[in-house]
């Protein structure tokens, strides 16, 4: 079946896929409910057989689809893959019910998503990919408190690697849909933050570490922002790059907040403690590698935004909170101005975001009660004059010569 080309055909195709998924979902749920209704009336052997029937039927359907020489419609693949996923979970859950087995639901979830991961690859199923991403993030959050490292959220990066063919920026047969990108980015952010928390949690008998996972979360968001992308990915609009949107919101939000006098102290202490964990240095190493790759791809502005989070790192060697505060304010201001200024040189910048950033900085300085009005006034006058001078110079340079 050839890929549809017109927008109308694409919408029809998407509607078919969604309808098929819903049908599979309802079918699976209905089967489970009907079979489990009068469980006690059947002997155990019959109940066990009924538990396996939906799974075997779904497997037979998927196998028939995979064997076909002619490519199958997307809605058929998605429906069967989702049905098989649900039937797998239902089978395990029903067997547990028959034997009154308890246990933790994250253990059940773990085996469920692991058993369904290969369906993402062989059936090319976005529905199962969404389930996998949701399930791994859920599992990671729940397991962030588990003291045994191989049962904790620390293995989340390995689980995420299971979707390697779906990683953004890598070449695969067709681009990921925007909803799937958002789900993937959210799952990655949540799961990696849970893994970071688990690494801090592992340091027993020092409960202060619990409060300082915050710094690891900011560094995780920064690393996510700088994830390497293909040229096509870099050129695509921002709404198609949710990892940059989500990561950027956290990095800029936290660093803006950290410029407020009252909170700078908290964040410098958080980084001073948090940077003592090996996971933090691993994140810094990843950030540096990603930053080099981003600079090679001419994404300097993105690197500048992400590195706002790194300005807090010197707190680990005892740099004063006030010094770090001013360094962050200066950095964010320069990033904001550069985002606008780059447009004046004819290259692609981010003027709206830059303006918003500078306005947010100004508002934060007004709200910061630890600095005097005189200091604020002088700073604003100098900054304002510098911006106007910049615009005048740029206007003169771009004025057409008569």
């Amino acid at each position, binding site marked *: 079946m050839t890929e549809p080309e017109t927008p109308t055909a694409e919408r029809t195709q998407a509607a078919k896929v969604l309808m098929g998924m819903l049908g599979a979902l309802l079918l699976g749920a209905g089967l489970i409910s009907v079979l489990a209704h009068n*469980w006690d009336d059947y002997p155990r052997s019959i109940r066990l057989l009924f538990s396996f029937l939906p799974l075997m039927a779904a497997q037979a359907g998927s196998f028939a689809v995979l064997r076909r020489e002619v490519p199958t419609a997307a809605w058929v693949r998605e429906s069967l893959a989702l049905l098989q996923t649900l039937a797998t979970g239902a*089978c395990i859950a029903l067997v547990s019910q028959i034997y009154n087995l*308890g246990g933790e639901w994250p253990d059940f979830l773990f085996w469920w998503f692991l058993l369904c991961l290969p369906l993402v690859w062989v059936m090319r199923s976005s529905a199962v990919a969404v389930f996998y991403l949701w399930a791994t993030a859920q599992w990671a959050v729940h397991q962030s408190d588990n003291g045994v490292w191989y049962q904790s959220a620390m293995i989340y990066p390995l689980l995420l690697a299971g979707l390697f063919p779906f990683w953004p920026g890598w070449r695969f047969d067709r681009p990921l849909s925007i909803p799937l990108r958002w789900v993937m980015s959210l799952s990655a952010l949540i799961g990696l933050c849970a893994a970071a928390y688990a690494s801090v949690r592992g340091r027993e008998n020092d409960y202060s570490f619990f409060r300082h996972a915050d710094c690891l979360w900011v560094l995780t968001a920064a690393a996510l922002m700088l994830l390497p992308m293909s040229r096509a990915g870099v050129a695509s609009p921002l709404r198609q790059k949710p990892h940059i949107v989500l990561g950027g919101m956290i990095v800029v939000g936290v660093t803006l907040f950290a410029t407020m006098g009252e909170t700078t102290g908290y964040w410098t202490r958080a980084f001073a403690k948090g940077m003592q964990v090996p996971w933090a240095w691993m994140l810094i190493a990843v950030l540096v590698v990603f930053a080099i790759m981003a600079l090679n791809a001419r994404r300097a502005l993105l690197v500048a935004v992400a590195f706002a989070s790194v300005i807090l790192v010197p707190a680990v060697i005892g740099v004063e909170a006030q010094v770090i505060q001013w360094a962050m304010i200066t950095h964010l201001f320069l990033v904001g101005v550069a985002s606008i200024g780059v447009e004046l040189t004819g290259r692609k910048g981010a003027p709206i975001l830059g303006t918003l950033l500078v306005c947010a900085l100004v508002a934060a300085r007004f709200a910061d009660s630890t600095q005097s009005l005189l200091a604020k006034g002088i700073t604003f006058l100098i900054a304002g004059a510098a911006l106007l001078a910049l615009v005048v110079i740029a206007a003169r340079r771009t004025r057409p010569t008569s």
Partner: protein
Amino acid sequence: MKSAALIIFAVTALAQLAVPLWQIRTHEQVLEHGTIIRLKCRAPDPYDPLRGRFLAVSPEDTKVSLSTIEALTHGKSIFITFTTDADGISHPASRVAVPPSSGPYLRVKVAYTLLKECEFRWPFDRFYINEELAPEADKWFAERIRKKDGVIAEVRVLGGRAVLSDLKFEGKSFREILKERVKRPGS
């Protein structure tokens, strides 16, 4: 590429069948050959004795003594042995590093440790019942809220695994009590 996809699918399908089959095999062995231990359960919360269509089962004993002070990690698996009192009720006796050669023992997970005591989580916490019996169970618990008589959980134990085979009250299966109540309303 197609043959690789078929091979991966075949392995996946087999694994999806193998996991529940393995569950069945191990737990059938426990039910057939396991030692019965009886555990006294706490009176369930009368406002929420049911979640969905199962009864929340909560054995009274959730602590075991340790031979030395040790800090066990939350979630770590340990083995515990049992003693039986004059009423035939089993109680956790001690934590052992390796499974003993005789006597029932169970693998449980650590909740936390305090000095020479370890709080653990039982590997079962629910008893499924038919949805038509569920409202009757709710009424039964509400009638007995002030009574101290506990429900006894009959558990089969083998090789560190446990299967909750029945819940009994005054020597009678709880399912049978509920079925009789449904047949004779008002009793």
